[in-house]
């Protein structure tokens, strides 16, 4: 308790140094929060695409439903298929009508006869998509096979790159924050050198002297994390309507308050570790 009071006194007596330390921590946690949102959003995007049919086989007009069902049964027994759905010509027309309900000209041009029946298939493992696609292409009933493998692969590689870039930026910022905190706490220790020397001569233990500086580091970290998280969350909430209209029906940013609070909790833990680590480095460096 005494150590906390002493920390608070240190903060009040050098407010600009305290602000500098909080600012660098805030900057780090702002970037961490923004990258967390980006990674979370892209993961949602991939999940959305993965939940969609991964292979669609369109059948020739002469293909009969019972033959298509037989082909579907064969695929099911292969053990590679997660879900399989038959879309008849009639259902295809319904879907078409729903998609183009605002364009009467397009609706007039299309009839049930020109739309093909299809099978929408999801694989258990994404690697099996090629095998499934090849077996469908070999069937005489099938006219065309499409699967959005490239979309998912591109998205996955973008997300992976984003994650790597994010981690690199966060690592650089975290190292920056640690160095700046070490310097700031080091300056504070140097300013109090005489006081510390007197305390030592008056029987102070090393930890009696160290604790206030460690608490100070934790304070900078936690306050910086809370401000950084708050700013990033405000930016997210402000831009959310724009993002939602851009992505349309894709639920990229279904942000739950629990996710946000969980993120804050995680950031506070990381901030505490960063604060303790940097102030401990300063204490080791300047309090020999």
């Amino acid at each position, binding site marked *: 308790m*005494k150590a906390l009071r002493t920390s608070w006194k240190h903060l009040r007596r050098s407010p600009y140094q305290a602000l500098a330390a909080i600012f660098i921590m805030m900057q780090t946690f702002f970037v961490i929060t923004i990258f967390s949102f980006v990674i979370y959003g892209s993961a949602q995007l991939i999940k959305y695409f993965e939940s969609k049919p991964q292979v669609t086989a369109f059948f020739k007009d002469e293909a009969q439903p019972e033959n298509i069902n037989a082909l579907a049964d064969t695929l099911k027994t292969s053990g590679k298929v997660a879900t399989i759905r038959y879309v008849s010509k009639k259902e295809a027309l319904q879907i078409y009508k729903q998609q183009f309900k605002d364009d009467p000209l397009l609706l007039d041009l299309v009839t049930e006869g020109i739309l093909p029946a299809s099978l929408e298939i999801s694989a258990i493992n994404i690697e099996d998509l090629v095998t499934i696609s090849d077996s469908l292409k070999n069937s005489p009933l099938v006219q065309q096979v499409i699967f959005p493998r490239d979309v998912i692969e591109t998205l996955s590689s973008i997300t992976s790159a984003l994650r790597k870039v994010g981690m690199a930026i966060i690592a650089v910022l975290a190292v920056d924050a640690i160095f700046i905190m070490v310097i700031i706490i080091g300056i504070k220790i140097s300013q109090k050198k005489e*006081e510390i020397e*007197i*305390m030592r*001569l*008056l*029987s*102070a*233990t090393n930890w009696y002297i160290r604790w206030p500086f460690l608490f100070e580091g934790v304070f900078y970290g936690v306050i910086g994390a809370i401000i950084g998280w708050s700013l990033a969350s405000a930016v997210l909430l402000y831009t959310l309507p724009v993002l939602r209209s851009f992505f349309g029906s894709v639920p990229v940013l279904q942000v739950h308050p629990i996710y946000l609070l969980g993120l804050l909790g995680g950031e506070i833990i990381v901030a505490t570790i960063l604060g303790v680590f940097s102030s401990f480095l300063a204490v080791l460096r300047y309090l020999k």
Partner: protein
Amino acid sequence: MIVIQNVTKTFGTGASALIDVSLQIDKGEFVFLVGPSGSGKTTLLRMLIRDVLPTQGSIIVNDWDIVKLPSSKVPHLRKKIGVVFQDLKLLTDRTIGENIMLPLEMAQMGHREAMNRVEEILEQVGIASHKDKFPIQLSGGELQRTAIARALVFSPDILLADEPTGNLDMATSWEIVKVLQDINKTGTTVVMATHNTDIVNSLLKRIVTLEKGKLVRDDKRKDQVDKTTKEKDTTKDEGK
């Protein structure tokens, strides 16, 4: 009890602060440590609280072997030895009460208990009314009393006072010496480094003289000398 045996202190520059000093101070003694500036008085006192380690020799304070004492035990040693530093070492941004309370806070004493102890000790050194003042508001004598109060707050076995009358007028110096004498009467060993010959000569106490780092004289207390002489005479008479 303090036992100093063949202690030499040579600094990195090659200058010797103490050369082969041996000295024993019994519990409850009052000893003046005298000598010109640079004779090694302060170095000797600093060694007793392990602020400086000897280059050679050994120092035993109560049961503590200063040379072998691990760093983790130094705070325990310093609780047992009160020190009035030459430059007082008071914290200017804390009140007199807070300065005296500092060692008690370090020892994790409860606030109420610490406050009571501070009031008691301030009363003992005669500056109870200055508890809430800052050091800048006090006179030299009052600041010395504050430093003494802080040194006494743990009721130490030994009190080391480095030039406690250094910058004071004669009347105030005597007041300070009176305080130290009163403390000595309670059984505390007092070692006072000083230049003040008037005080040293007026009090019939043991005088240890250092010059250029060497112990050149060790004059026992007058009553001790008388006692030793009497013992010698008695032995002679019995022999006859």
